Structures are given as C-alpha cells and as structure tokens.
C-alpha cells in the first residue's frame, strides 16, 4: 500500500501546458502591476477632465476636454515640448556614443580589469540628485572647473555654462554621464559573444580598423543598441530629478522640459486638471517616440 500510493499520486498529477504555467507565474504579478499602474492613470484621467479648485474650499467641476484644449493652445507647452525634444535627442545620442565607447574600451583585456570596470561604472551609482548637484557646481561660473583651470593659468575669465543658451547641453551631458555605464556594460556583454576568428578573417581580408568595426563588430550589436536607444529615450523623456536639482527649469524657462513644467503646474501652481491633461500628452509623446523607433529601426532586427 505504502509503495503504491505515491505512484498513484504521480499518475494523477496532470502536466501543465506552457500557457497554464506561464499564466500561473505571470498573471498574478501582471494583474497587480496593472492595478497599481492603472489606478494612477485612471485618477489622472479623472483629473484631466475636471477643474479642481483649492481656494475657497475644495471643489471639482467636470469640464470635458477643456483642459486638453488649453494645453494645446498654450505656447508654454510647445516651448517645453521643444526643450524636451532637444534634451532627449542630445542625451540619447551622447549616451549611446559613450556607451559604445565604454563597451569597446572595456572589451580589451587589461591588468586590473575589475578595477577599471568598477570606476567606469561609478557614475551610475551616483543618484540623479547627486549628479545634478555635481554638474551644477562644475558648470556654474562661480564654482566651476573651467573657471578654476583658467584662474590657475592666471586668466580672469569666468566661463559660465548655466546660461539660457547652454543649459540644455549641460543637462544632456549630466544625464548621459549617469546613463552611459548601463549601456556600456550591456554592449560589452554583447561584444564578448563575437568569436575571435571573425577578427582573424577580417585581418586576412586586410580590412582597415574602421571596416572591421563596421562589418564585424557593429552588426551583432544592432539589437542591443536598439533596445538601449529605446530605454535611453524613455528615461530621458521622463527624467525629472536631475533637472529639478541642476537647473530647476531655469534660467527663466530655458531648460523647463515637460516633466519640470508638469511639476510646476501641478505642485506650484496647483493647477491639477491642467497638469494631468499635460501628463497625458507627455505619455503620448513617450509612447509615440518609442513606437516610431520600433517601426523605423527595431522591426528590422529579427529578434523581437
């Protein structure tokens, strides 16, 4: 009896199909995620269709699409959209170039490789809050490195980069400084899978280093580069901490990206309905941009 029972139990246990197993593991998490994510979205949607007043007692009034119309007619919104696009493009290009450089350089075998890798990784360990402070001190004429170097050389100039003309570039450099190591390490991991014999073949064919890079190194990296271009785009467009600390949208509104403008509208002006409506435009831009990246580029990489 004792020997038969386990066998019987085994026979009765049905095998799960792939789908059942996947749903068993994935569904609870995803449902929870949807609830956690859907709630704020639904709440924002509700706010976007209402006018919310605090002064003279809290009251709300349904206003339909009025908030959305106000956003579209607001020149400030379009200015912030332009700043966001400028910042995102600069930040993504810098991040990807730096990431590629990090990957290629770290792929060379060196002594103390672990130490170099950790040092290159360090910027990612710095919070966006900390990075914002660092770049603010570095870029400001009063406290910055350029001024210090010039003064060291005996010159009186005070190069200040926290100006309306260059502040977006300072932000882009700061954000790519923190994001590039992430890209670099994934590129490095991808590079390591390229067999050495391909480089031997390239040497036999007498390819120049540039040709080798273009024909041997780059093609296998394309998928990783696509994924991280998307990730860098999303992260740049929703970046807030760095801008909040580094420039607070200033000087004037020179660096006020949509995220910063959202903060200003919702938390300083307490214009919640308008802010919520604007946040949907930002979300639309983020999704739209990643979708177009996918359609233009990602679709051609077979693995998705």
């Amino acid at each position, binding site marked *: 009896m004792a020997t038969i029972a386990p066998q019987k139990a085994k026979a009765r246990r049905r095998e*799960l199909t*792939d789908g059942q197993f996947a749903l068993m593991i994935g569904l609870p998490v995803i449902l929870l995620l949807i609830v956690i994510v859907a709630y704020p979205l639904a709440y924002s949607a509700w706010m976007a269709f209402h006018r919310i007043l605090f002064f003279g007692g809290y009251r709300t009034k349904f206003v339909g699409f009025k908030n959305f119309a106000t956003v579209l007619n607001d020149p400030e919104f379009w200015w912030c959209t332009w700043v966001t696009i400028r910042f995102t493009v600069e930040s993504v290009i810098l991040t990807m170039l730096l990431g590629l450089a990090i990957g290629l*350089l770290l792929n060379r075998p060196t002594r103390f490789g*672990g130490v170099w890798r950790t040092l290159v990784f360090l910027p990612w360990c710095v919070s966006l809050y900390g990075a914002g402070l660092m770049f603010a001190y*570095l870029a400001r004429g009063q406290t910055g490195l350029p001024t210090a170097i010039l003064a060291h050389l005996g010159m009186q100039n005070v190069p200040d980069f926290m100006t309306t003309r260059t502040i977006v570039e300072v932000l882009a450099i700061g954000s790519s400084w923190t994001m590039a190591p992430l890209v670099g390490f994934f590129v490095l991991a991808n590079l390591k899978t390229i067999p050495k014999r391909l480089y031997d073949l390239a040497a036999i064919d007498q390819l120049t280093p540039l040709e080798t890079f273009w024909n041997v190194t780059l093609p296998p990296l394309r998928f990783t580069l696509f994924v991280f271009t998307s990730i860098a785009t999303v992260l740049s467009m929703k970046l807030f901490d760095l801008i909040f600390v580094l420039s607070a949208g200033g000087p004037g509104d020179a660096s006020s990206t949509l995220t910063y403008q*959202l903060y200003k509208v919702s938390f300083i002006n307490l214009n919640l309905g308008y802010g919520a409506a604007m946040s949907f435009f930002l979300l639309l831009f*983020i999704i739209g941009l990643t979708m177009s990246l996918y359609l233009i580029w990602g679709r051609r990489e077979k693995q998705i």
Partner: protein
Amino acid sequence: MTKRRPNFVIAMTVLIIWSLLPILWFVRMAFMNHAEIANFPPHIFPSSFNLSSFVNIFGYDYKLADGSISAASGQAGQIELGLQNSIIVSAAVTLITIIIVVPLAYVFARLDFRFKNVLLNAVLLAVAIPPVSTLIPFYTLYVQLGLVGTLPGLIIIDLTTTVPFVTWMLIGYFRNLPPIERLARIDGFSRLHTLLFLILPLARSGVAVSAIIAFLFAWNEFTFALVLVNGTPATTLPAAISGFLGQDPNPAQLAACILITIIPPALVAFFLQRHLAEMNIADPVR
C-alpha cells in the same frame, strides 16, 4: 588584439577621467572648509585636507588643526535615520524584485502562450509612465491607505518601477540560455523544478544584474521619497540630504553626504560587476 597601443591607453585615460571628474570635484569640496569653498576664483585643489565634513555629518564635532572646532551638523540625526531606512528599503526592493522578475522574464522569454504580447506591452507601458504624473494619484491613494511616511509604502512604489524595467532587460538574456527544457522534461523534471534548479543556476549573471539595477534604483530614488517620506521617521537618504539645501547651506557637508551615498552601490557594483559583462541580450553570433 592584446597588444597595448598608445591610442588605447589615451582613450582609456580619457574615459576614466570623464567618469570620475564630477565625483572628484565633490571629493575636493568635501575636504575644503567653508571659507575655501566660497573663495573666488575657485582653487583646483583644497589647501588642506580635513575630514571635518565627514565627521560632522554623523553628528560629531571635529577639532581643526588651528584649534577651532567644526560643529556637528544639525542634520546628523536625519542622515543616520536616512541611511538606515535606505538600506532597509533597498534590500527589500532588491530581494522582492528578483523573486518576482526572474520567473516573469523567464516565462516571457521561453514560453509561448496566448495574450503574451498584450501582457508584455502592459509591462512596458509601466516603464513609460513618468513619475511626476503619478505622484498626485499615488499620494491620494496612500493617504487613504495610511501608507504615507511608511517604509512598505515606499517599497511598493519602487517595485512599480523596478519590476517592469528589470523584466524588460532580462527577457533577451533568458532567450540566450541553452534550451534545456525539453531534455529536462524527458528526465522527468516538472516546469517549476526546471526553472528553480536548472535554469536559475545557469542564469546567475542575470540574477546578479537584476540585483544591481534594483538596488541602485531603490537606493537613489528621490522624487517619491521627497513627497511620501521626507520629514517622517521613514525618510530615506536622498530625501534626508535634500534637507541640507534649504535648511543648512553647507556645501562641504553636502558633498561629503553625496560621497557617502555612493559607497554602498559602488561596493555592490564592485562585487557583481563581472556579471554585468555576461548580460548579453542579443542573439550570439554563430
């Protein structure tokens, strides 16, 4: 390939300088005293190396070389509290993220099932939502649930970001693991058993990298911490440090604080960095 060329050495040096410069600029500030920082034009190197800022921020007075005393920071209590909470929050977020994400990414990467793409897009949508736009809804929800100013509240918020983000990164990695499922089935392993005892050991690097990403995110999260836990007993380090700016404008101590926040993630990175170099998400070349 292995022969060292001057170009490579120069490029590597530039890369290291680029990576360290902003941090070194804060190291320099942290060693300076009040008058030196305010000095114009700024010096490149501090004239004296005093550790006063590092001692001050933990609540101790420091006797300077000239006999005067650099007073302990009034923020010391908040910083110690923040440090303690940050460690708790980051550890919890890291652990929970791994437990959730590894099976999730595995399922997305290796199994076929209905609604897979819909569910995957739902996960990715969560990555796209900017925190500024969910701040007010979350705050309202948290007031109703009594989660404002609590560590579990912050941990849940952090998870809503780390889980989708890390899942996104792990899927490609899992796809590249050797296809051992069928062999495991023939040997009579159940799917759960296959995942836990065969796939998981193979995927160590993926797990390690998830840990790094989740830890770094939770450790450095600022926006939600500022709104939800700042000024409460659940304050985390970034929120506590932001108190410096408004209440006690002391750049040297601020710099010292920021430097201290880099140490724990740097240690995590140092011990796990070799796994980062294993995180291939693309098809390997054949």
